């Protein structure tokens, strides 16, 4: 009997692709139908991702050998195309589906009407992201990456408007250039090792001639640069804040995941191909990851403090979250990486929710007018002109309370403070760093602590301004039920992550351990054909 569940792994790619293609057949006026199709697709992807995740959770308690490999067309591994769902990719796919489902629910309230083909673009984006996580092959990674980017270009421009078009122009130009770097890197690596399969590449890296090693490193460095651009590492990430701020809220929220694709590929390739066993290439580029991570962390933290609206702060929070994981990967201790992976889950969800929240809070507030005002304008106020502010017994409407609570959760998650899961991740990282206590670890410890403080200051200030000290002429806060459900879903996932923090952290730590043993991955992919 053929086990149906071997095909499960390809569903996160096939489902959104087919559904998005079907959706193109229908007219834009049939919104209800499109909403139903995309919600169904998203729910199905979520279920599949959770099944895969559950298998990884229960598969091997010792954190072992749970890579599920799918040979497309049943061609043997180094020649055919493989999809690999190991602990890391499964975790990322599950994270994408949770974030995607929340964002989609939010978008259904009003944003999907802001421009044509929102649902199709959204599902193609999900397909690209999932494909990039699941593929075991460098060139397919490129293809999925381009699908993801092509959809993201459309989504970045969703809703149109001059600011979006201007930011979109930069975004597309930068990403096209990054894609060209990606191709150069892949082809140099192919030229040196003669393989595109990641597991096979890891084996070849160990045995190539020492004279070729320089060229291999050039290829890996060019490839790495492409992904550092994607995850907005300093100084390659100046495009991120304007683009994500200008993009419509649901697009920006799902873009929080796009940066994580860059982080994922860097983690995957550096640990798989350039691990301990990689002879002369062991730990290639690790110092660069550390430096880029620290610089990104610092830049993102400054950005959050300097930001004058929540959407921009959320964009910098995305950078902080990428920087944290990069720096943790650069330190090179599995315990630190485990904490960082756990932090990545929570912070991505929180960043996504923060973009959605920022849109609700800033709805109707003219951001152009805000920009004109002096930075410390709120400190120079006529004391006699401020009567209504001191009125006792201010009634807090339900929307303000709900949004305030949501903002509180986001802030705690991004800053990594107790009692939510951001803190658990940060604590695990700090614990690992304190055990190592080399100069790199100390630098990361300091950067992490400062970024927590900076995130807290920046987001609290913006939150107070958006909720409690609203401009008199700003419109009433209103939030639709679907919007609240979408945001609430993401935040509930954050809270659940804290409640089941022990289980999550163990999973993340096992993932880090698993990534540290590339042989198991290679064995799973190449198996008998080795």
């Amino acid at each position, binding site marked *: 009997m053929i086990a149906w569940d071997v095909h499960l792994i390809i569903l996160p790619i096939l489902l959104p692709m087919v559904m998005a293609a079907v959706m193109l057949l229908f007219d834009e006026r049939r919104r209800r139908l499109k909403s139903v199709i995309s919600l169904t697709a998203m729910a199905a992807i979520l279920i599949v991702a959770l099944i895969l995740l559950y298998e990884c959770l229960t598969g091997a308690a010792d954190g072992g050998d749970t890579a599920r490999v799918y040979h497309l067309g049943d061609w043997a591994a180094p020649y055919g195309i493989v999809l690999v769902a190991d602990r890391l990719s499964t975790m990322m796919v599950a994270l994408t589906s949770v974030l995607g489902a929340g964002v989609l629910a939010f978008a259904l309230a009003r944003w999907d009407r802001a421009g044509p083909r929102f649902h199709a673009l959204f599902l193609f984006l999900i397909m690209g992201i999932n494909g990039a996580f699941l593929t075991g092959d460098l*060139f397919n990674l*490129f*293809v999925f990456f*381009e699908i993801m*980017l*092509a959809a993201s*270009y459309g989504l970045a*421009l969703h809703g*149109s*408007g*001059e600011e979006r*078009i*201007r930011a*979109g*122009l*930069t975004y*597309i*130009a930068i990403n*096209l*250039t990054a*894609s*060209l770097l990606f*191709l*150069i890197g*892949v*082809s*140099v690596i*192919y*030229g040196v090792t003669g393989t*595109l399969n990641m597991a096979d590449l890891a084996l070849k890296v160990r045995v190539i001639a020492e004279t070729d090693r320089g060229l291999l490193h050039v290829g890996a460095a060019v490839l790495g640069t492409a992904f550092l651009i994607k995850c907005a590492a300093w100084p390659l990430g100046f495009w991120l804040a304007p683009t994500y701020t200008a993009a419509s809220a649901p697009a920006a929220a799902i873009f929080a995941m796009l940066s994580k694709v860059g982080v994922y590929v860097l983690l995957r390739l550096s640990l798989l191909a350039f691990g301990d066993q990689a002879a002369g290439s062991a730990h290639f580029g690790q110092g660069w990851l550390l430096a880029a991570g620290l610089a990104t962390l610092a830049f993102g933290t400054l950005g959050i403090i300097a930001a004058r609206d929540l959407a921009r702060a959320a964009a910098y929070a995305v950078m902080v979250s990428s920087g944290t994981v990069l720096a943790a990967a650069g330190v090179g201790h599995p315990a630190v990486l485990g904490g960082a992976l756990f932090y990545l889950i929570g912070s991505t969800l929180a960043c996504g929710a923060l973009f959605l929240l920022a849109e609700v809070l800033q709805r109707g507030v003219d951001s152009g007018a805000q920009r004109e005002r002096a930075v410390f304008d709120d400190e120079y106020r006529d004391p006699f002109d401020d009567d209504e502010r001191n009125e006792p017994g201010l009634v807090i409407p339900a929307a303000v309370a709900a949004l305030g609570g949501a903002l509180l959760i986001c802030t705690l998650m991004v800053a990594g403070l107790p009692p939510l899961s951001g803190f658990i991740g940060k604590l695990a990282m700090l614990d690992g760093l304190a055990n190592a206590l080399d100069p790199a670890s100390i630098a990361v410890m300091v950067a992490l602590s400062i970024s927590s403080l900076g995130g807290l200051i920046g987001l609290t200030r913006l939150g107070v301004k958006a909720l409690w000290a609203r401009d008199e002429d700003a419109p009433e806060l209103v939030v639709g039920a679907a919007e609240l459900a979408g945001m609430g879903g993401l935040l509930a996932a954050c809270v659940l992550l804290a409640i089941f923090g022990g289980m999550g952290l163990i999973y993340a730590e096992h993932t880090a351990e698993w990534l540290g043993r590339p042989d198991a991955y290679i064995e799973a992919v190449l198996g008998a054909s080795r």
Partner: protein
Amino acid sequence: MTEIVLAIAIGVLSTAGIWLLLRPRTFQVIMGLSLLSYAVNLFIFAMGRLRSGAPPVTSSGLARPELYDDPTPQALVLTAIVISFALTALFLVVLLAARGATGSDHVDGREPAE
């Protein structure tokens, strides 16, 4: 000889491409991206080693693989051409939209102050 010609061609294309990419007008940027993608396509092709007269696929058993050309880079180039062509077309649309929305073909969306 072929190697030198190809290397010079890739070099000239990428030099011109990078220079145009850094220019302030959107049309120059798109031309730069196109030239760069040609350079990269040729580069991928070169990574499969340059040979002439070698068949790309075998018909009866792979007796001596060194006699045949490597078909993988050719497949890669084909994919890369399609993707970069599609994305350049998409970029062209955004470029026109930017021109329409901002009334300027400068990459910043406004003419620089004189």
